[in-house]
């Protein structure tokens, strides 16, 4: 007898079909993994179960939870179920908590509401729950506010809210996507323990096949609102009978073909970072006192050859983005020098930096936020051209944009469109076109594929590899995702607490990490084949 049973569920929003004949079930104590690309209807499935759909949504079919028909349930019945029998954890821990209420209030609120317990009683239970999710009272009193906690800690609070009343079913929608791999492993462990403790059913939604494989007993693969395949995790993924399952599995471990590291023979160095340190002023604690400075980057030295592809990996907050900003001359080091093509760029004025800016460009993580929605592609991709000495004519500019679009696999007619007309993957191609239009020698890419679906991500990695071969562009990839580092880079730098703690050939570092920080990253990183092998042993 399953706890949650979804039968022939169809969902439309404003007459757009979102789910078509969806089937899914979760038994008590079972972990069901729901996998699919963005827009496949994973989150909408979760919101249908919670009955928190947008106003314009219409659901038909049958959704039964513990014998209750959820689609026919009244709002009062749903309120009684939500937070008591069904808990939910969301993707973005930074914004999931109310900023003006203490964590204690937020955990205790649901307990008081459902059990009618007294304030003291509810706070007592909330305290126990916070201890349980790894936020002990000594360091995390109930009076803390969300802004005083990190992302991983906030996600623990969200889990404490969802699990405070020992729900029969927990729905976790991409619970670790916004966290670095080490935090991800910790949160997944916590979820696994909570399932084991109280025979809770867990519906784990993720786009990451490796994460789901590590966690789920059974797996449901969703594509464009339809279930492609469902079954035991080990069998489904080892046999890969369904073509879409195979496509997903292959895309998530895709390594682009790169014949040889490009341009390493010259021995000349493209970028030299020497003893760079960046301090931020400490927070003011009173009118006359400040906390000591925070050292974000601590005595970092590194060098890059032309055409080399280098990964800078580390946990969130380790200083990797600060270092990248200094390399791009968007931030000034407190001490140390940075040389680019042999010239010092630290301490130069904006006018003196122009030639250097032409040769270095950047690709950001979020392909949705990095374009002005009111400008056409032609103007957006041509943005970096202002660093050229001579302003190109309109015809020249169109020619250059067309060429850049062609190189990233887009059509030159796309230049008269607006950003919203493109998908996430296409937008990331646009960011790359924008980065290569000045023929740079170095592209700094800050988590360039972590917001993309696995199949799109494979294509973008291919594109990076191709441009490296064809144009000899050197890459500095900033990432916490080791599969990206493995796929596309020659060397890896591991950063921890502002320092570079390990450097070496990508395969050496990832296969035989030496430093504690590198070991922690490698152990925590979900690996599809390792996970399948373990599932095979467990499930026979």
């Amino acid at each position, binding site marked *: 007898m399953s706890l949650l049973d979804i039968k022939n569920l169809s969902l439309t929003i404003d007459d757009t079909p979102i789910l078509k004949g969806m089937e899914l079930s979760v038994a008590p104590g079972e972990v069901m993994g729901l996998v699919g690309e963005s827009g496949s209807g994973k989150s909408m499935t979760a919101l249908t179960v919670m009955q928190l759909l947008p106003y314009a949504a219409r659901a038909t079919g049958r959704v039964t939870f513990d014998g209750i028909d959820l689609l026919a349930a009244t709002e009062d019945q749903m309120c009684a179920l939500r*937070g008591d029998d069904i808990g939910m954890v969301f993707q973005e821990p930074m914004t999931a908590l109310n900023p003006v209420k203490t964590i204690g209030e937020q955990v205790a*609120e649901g307990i008081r509401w459902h059990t009618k317990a007294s304030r003291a009683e509810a706070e007592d239970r909330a305290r126990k729950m916070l201890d349980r999710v790894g936020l002990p009272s000594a360091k995390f009193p109930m009076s803390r*506010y969300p802004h005083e906690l990190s992302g991983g800690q906030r996600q623990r609070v969200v889990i404490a809210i*969802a699990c405070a009343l020992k729900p029969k079913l927990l729905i976790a929608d991409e619970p670790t996507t916004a966290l670095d791999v080490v935090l991800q492993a910790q949160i997944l462990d916590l979820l696994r323990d909570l399932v084991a403790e109280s025979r809770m059913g867990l519906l784990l939604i993720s786009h990451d096949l490796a994460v789901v494989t590590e966690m789920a007993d059974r797996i449901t693969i969703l594509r464009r609102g339809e279930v492609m395949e469902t079954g035991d995790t080990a069998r489904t993924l080892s046999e890969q009978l369904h073509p879409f399952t195979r496509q997903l599995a292959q895309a998530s471990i895709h390594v682009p073909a790169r014949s040889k590291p490009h341009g390493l023979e010259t021995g000349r160095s493209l970028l030299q970072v020497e003893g760079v340190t960046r301090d931020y002023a400490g927070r003011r604690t009173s009118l006359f006192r400040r906390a000591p400075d925070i050292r974000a980057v601590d005595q970092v030295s590194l060098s890059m050859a032309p055409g080399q592809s280098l990964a800078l990996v580390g946990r969130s907050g380790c200083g990797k983005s600060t270092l990248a900003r200094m390399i791009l001359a968007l931030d000034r080091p407190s001490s140390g020098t940075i040389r680019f093509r042999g010239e010092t760029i630290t301490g130069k004025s904006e006018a003196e930096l122009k030639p250097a800016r032409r040769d270095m460009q950047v690709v950001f993580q979020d392909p949705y936020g990095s374009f002005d929605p009111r400008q056409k592609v032609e103007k957006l991709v041509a943005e970096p051209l202002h660093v050229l000495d001579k302003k190109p004519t309109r015809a020249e500019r169109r020619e250059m944009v067309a060429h850049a679009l062609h190189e990233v696999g887009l059509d030159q007619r796309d230049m008269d469109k607006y950003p919203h007309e493109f998908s996430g993957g296409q937008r990331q191609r646009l960011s790359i076109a924008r980065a290569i239009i000045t023929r740079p020698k170095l592209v700094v890419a800050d988590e360039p594929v972590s917001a993309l679906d696995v199949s799109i991500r494979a294509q973008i990695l291919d594109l990076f590899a191709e441009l490296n071969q064809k144009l000899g562009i050197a890459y500095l990839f900033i990432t916490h995702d080791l599969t990206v580092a493995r796929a596309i880079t020659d060397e890896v730098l591991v950063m921890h607490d502002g320092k570079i703690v390990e450097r070496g050939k990508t395969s050496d570092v990832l296969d035989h990490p030496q430093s504690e920080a590198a070991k922690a990253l490698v152990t925590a990183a979900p690996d599809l084949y390792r996970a399948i092998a373990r599932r095979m042993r467990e499930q026979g």
Partner: protein
Amino acid sequence: MTAYLLKRLAIAIATLILASMVVFAVLEVLPGDPARLMLGLNASADQVELLRNQMGLNAPLALRYLHWAGGLLSLDFGRSYTYSVPVIDLVRERLAVSLPLALIALALSTMIAIPVGLFSASRRGRAGDTISMGAAQLGVAVPNFWFALMLIYVFAVWLQLVPAGGFPGWSAGIWPALKSLLLPAVALALPQAAILARVTRSALIEVLNEDYIRTARAKGLPYRAVLWRHALRNAMIPVLTILGLQFAFLLAGTIIIENVFYLPGLGRLVFQAITQRDLIVVESVVMLLVAAVIAVNLLVDLSYAVVDPRLRTRQ
């Protein structure tokens, strides 16, 4: 938190000093000699000069400013040129009318605006929202003196529930005094409430799209509880900002409304003082209003920190 408080306080004091300089300077350069005005058209130049000396009007500007500002600090505003009584007595008497009026209006405006904003935001795009926001639009557009006339016509002339104007004084009893302040307060409050309701609605709509609202819903709280417990407090910052600004408008608004309702308040006092060139009264009342507005804005700044814990730790 202390740093935040001290900083706000310092800014408030600096603003007050600057405002006092501006008020003093502006009234100094305006044409019109109070001594000549007091003595009438037939006075001789010598008589005027004598009075100017007596009033201290011939002393250097800086000295006169310091003298005046020092007087303000010890609540000695000087003597009115026209009434020949200490300004402080005039002000005290008038404040007993204007302050209750402004406070009642502020309370009314908040009590109308926040429920209407909540109602509208929770029914966004539906009939209830359209109707209440249409009414608010009307409230913003119509001037308060017209409202005042309509209110007099309906409640005083037609229904005869309240007096059409005048103020019996607090000595006549609390209820008769309040009754005569009721219509002016409503007339003052309605346009302010309309603006505040729109601000409340849009702040709430923004907050209702936040992730933590979904978290609260997933806890099992009904929509209404989420609205009151989670959304409203987060939407308070813009609402408080507007409320602080409105207090200034309410004080200024009393000048018109007090004239419509024949109320012996500060607004009427300042209006008469201006027409009679009673500079010292104008200066004093304007400074009093400035101080009140600055104090209210200081209160608003402090209430931000009460509402939002992030402001207590951050700069």
